[in-house]
């Protein structure tokens, strides 16, 4: 099947009324939770995870993906009107977006954020369309040693890009891998870390873990904080930017789109890091950098485009290689596995309807978001006025009922609460939960591939150096570590002087 035929199949799948409805619900919910601070896309996807059991795999994936990229759109609304990022990826938008709102240009800021997001999302999906098949073909050449090295590379990158200490990030990835070994051993069938109970034979559930670490922990952290919101909603007028504003934003949108997509491909980056880099680049390229922080439209257009393109880029490693680059992708992988579908190089061949259906749905989803976002701005402003004291019990209820509905086991609620407490402790002490979840999801594959590699080579570790792809990945990983150590040494020297 050539590219156009495949895309045609994708559109016929995504235009199916059920899938279209799933896409609409996904992007609508995604925008709503992106608008609401304190509820992340990860928590929402986890909450809706059990509902997807009753859907087909294509509809499930279309809806969950819609929540993710919808949340990137919605996050900007809160960042601009309240100066609180609805999503972590909207942090940079708070700087100039809120300034624009204070100057009475909230409508233009929202308009350019939506336009930039639409352009970047569409460019991102176009690039997925072009890249996914060649990557899928290349991935078929990967054997256990290459897969293991690729996973190690992903863990190191995921640990390296966390906020704060990299060693802590690495420790969290190791804890995630260890938690992934709970249950029956993949080769010998021996129970490990099960403590004599049957409840742990299948391992720890992904849903209770993610809901605890992200949903419950987020609420617990917010509960001990004062959340003051000053909504500048009354000042929203003239949503469409004029010609000069569009000219000023075109460059930042194009650069943010390409940068976001490329960074989104790298494991661990997600949609959070690219906006920071995009903002830095725009400030450096600006004719007058002093306008940044005082309502520069490029300070909204660049980061907003970057986070949406990164959300699209993150889909590539998942769809083509079966390797999720961030927690959101890990949940999507979990949804596929629940339906008995294995993501990876064979997905495009064995399930072209799912593979191309999801890609095509992202084109449709981006159009839906552009149509939804601007006319519904008053609704989002109204949503922002719901007090957190009313919102958080409902979030906790959705987490608890969602976890129970997954397995009908109160044990899973206990697991979720335990991880909620662990996540709360981790936030308090500067440990990030994202590398833990990423490593947990990939743990089984990592163990299988390292044991198979050793069996293949009769115990020779040199197998990881002898194969060209594996060697190239090891060199890339080594260079990344050296680069990080070099930057750290540079920072320490400059701090010392």
């Amino acid at each position, binding site marked *: 099947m050539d590219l156009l035929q495949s895309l045609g199949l994708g559109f016929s799948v995504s235009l199916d009324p059920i899938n279209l409805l799933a896409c609409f619900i996904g992007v609508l919910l995604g925008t709503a939770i992106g608008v609401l601070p304190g509820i992340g896309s990860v928590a929402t996807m986890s909450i809706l995870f059990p*509902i997807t059991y*009753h859907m087909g795999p294509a509809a499930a994936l279309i809806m969950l993906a819609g929540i993710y990229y919808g949340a990137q759109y919605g996050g900007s609304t809160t960042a601009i009107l309240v100066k609180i990022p609805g999503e972590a990826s909207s942090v940079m938008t708070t700087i100039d977006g809120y300034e624009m709102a204070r100057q009475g240009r909230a409508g233009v800021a929202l308009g350019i954020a939506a336009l930039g997001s639409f352009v970047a999302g569409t460019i991102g999906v176009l690039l997925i369309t072009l890249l996914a098949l060649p990557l899928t073909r290349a991935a078929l050449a990967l054997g256990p040693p290459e897969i293991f090295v690729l996973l190690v590379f992903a863990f190191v990158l995921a640990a390296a890009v966390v906020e704060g200490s990299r060693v802590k990030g690495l420790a969290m990835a190791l804890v995630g891998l260890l938690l992934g070994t709970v249950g029956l051993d993949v080769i010998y069938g021996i129970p490990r870390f099960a403590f004599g109970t049957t409840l742990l034979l299948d391992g720890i559930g992904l849903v209770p873990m993610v809901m605890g670490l992200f949903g419950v922990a987020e609420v617990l952290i917010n509960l001990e904080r004062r959340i003051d919101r000053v909504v500048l909603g009354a000042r929203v007028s003239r949503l469409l930017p004029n010609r000069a504003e569009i000219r000023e934003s075109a460059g930042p949108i194009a650069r943010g789109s390409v940068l976001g997509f490329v960074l989104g491909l790298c494991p661990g980056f997600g949609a959070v890091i690219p906006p920071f880099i995009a903002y830095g680049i725009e400030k450096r390229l600006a004719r007058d950098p002093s306008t940044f922080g005082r309502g520069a439209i490029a300070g909204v257009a660049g980061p907003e485009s970057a986070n949406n393109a990164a959300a699209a880029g993150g889909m590539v490693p998942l769809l083509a290689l079966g390797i999720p680059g961030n927690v959101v992708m890990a949940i999507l992988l979990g949804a596929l596995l629940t339906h008995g579908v294995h993501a990876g190089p064979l997905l495009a061949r064995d399930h072209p309807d799912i593979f191309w259906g999801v890609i095509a749905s992202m084109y449709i989803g981006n159009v839906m978001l552009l149509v939804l976002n601007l006319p519904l701005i008053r609704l989002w402003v109204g949503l922002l006025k719901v007090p957190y004291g009313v919102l958080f019990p409902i979030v906790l*209820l959705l987490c608890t009922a969602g976890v129970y509905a997954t397995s009908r086991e109160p044990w899973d609620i*206990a697991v979720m609460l335990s991880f909620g407490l662990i996540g709360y402790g981790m936030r308090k002490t500067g440990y990030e939960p994202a590398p833990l979840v990423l490593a947990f999801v990939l743990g089984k594959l990592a163990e299988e591939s390292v044991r198979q590699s050793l069996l293949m080579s009769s115990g020779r570790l040199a197998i990881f150096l002898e194969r060209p792809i594996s060697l190239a990945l090891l060199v890339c990983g080594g260079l990344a570590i050296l680069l990080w150590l070099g930057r750290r040494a540079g920072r320490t020297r400059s701090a010392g002087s």
Partner: protein
Amino acid sequence: MSTRLGARTIGPVTVLGALAVFAAIEASRYGIGSLNAPGPGFFPFWLATLLGLCATAVLIGAPRSPPPVMDPGVVPFGWMRSMGALALLGCYAVLLERVGYVGTTALVLAPLFRIGGVRWLVAAPLGLLVGIASWALFDALALRLPVGVWWR
């Protein structure tokens, strides 16, 4: 050094170290095997060893790391609200199959709304309303939730 090595460093490092030691001992019980025939304990044993090294590195690096930034938005004794909410969710897990979804939701949500600053007079009926409305929603979504053994 003593000022930097506070509870926020020592506590997690102790937990990570203890987890590493426990996992290494437990993994060696399953059989580590050798490089050409790795056993069920092989992978967790080496993970635990690396985790132990990471915990040591965090401890060694702590005096050189920047001091923790205190969140200015945290209210005094705010943690009590968080722990109260967590305890109520624990009750939810215990009561759910006995009392049923609507009853448990109403019982637990009312004090949660109260924690969020809603007056009791509003919190109690709001809890019941959310319980009934969410039951109807989940039922429509084909999510099966318990009616409670007492009502059967």
